């Protein structure tokens, strides 16, 4: 019997090995829940920037609108006038 046959015989015996049953569920879940951040794709990055830009414009616009609305004595009629003026 040469060395390779010995290795093959050992391997054949080793294949009969029964691996111990180890429950790693809790440890895996712990690692997953700790959270590995997924990399952001180019498309996702575009939508993130678009949302940020929209928010940057919308927040000051809303603030200005509220200030103007509260300052005006008759806000609804002024808005209606502004709209009708714009339509004309």
């Amino acid at each position, binding site marked *: *019997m*040469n*060395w*390779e*046959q*010995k*290795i*093959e*015989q*050992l*391997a*054949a*015996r*080793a*294949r*009969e*090995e*029964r691996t111990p049953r180890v429950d790693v569920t809790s440890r*895996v879940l712990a*690692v*997953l829940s700790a959270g*590995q951040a*997924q990399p952001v794709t180019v498309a996702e990055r575009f939508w993130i920037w678009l949302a940020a830009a929209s928010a940057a414009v919308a927040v000051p616009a809303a603030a200005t609108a509220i200030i103007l609305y509260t300052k005006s004595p008759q806000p609804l009629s002024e808005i209606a006038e502004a709209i009708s003026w714009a339509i004309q």
Partner: protein
Amino acid sequence: MEAYLSLSRYRGNAPLEHWLTRIATRVGYRYWKEKARRRRMEPFDVQEWDRATGSGDAGTLEPDDAAELLHQVFEQLAPRDRLVLTLRYLEQCDVAETSRRVGWTKTMVKVQTMRARNRLRKLLEQSGMELTG
């Protein structure tokens, strides 16, 4: 876990089992490379080898002991050699299956197997083992 985290990249071109075995092979190989880098090898017991194989009947060995001995021998090799020999001898993969699992060409697998076998033979010779039984 590696498979779970890579699940979004699974395209469905190959069966899920093939995809999983490739990941498992890659993870195991990475582990061996890391272990080899840290040089945390188990000492190789030559007497154990002679005792197990000297009588020409390694089949009487307990499966756990046979596996441990085999892994100790393979661990002395470079991770690349260990990978191909483990797949060929222990997992009984043919060239095509080995090629699929490790992502090498079939020619590369054949060359790597031949080199790994030669290195294993030299290793056994250098350890002073009785190779002819």
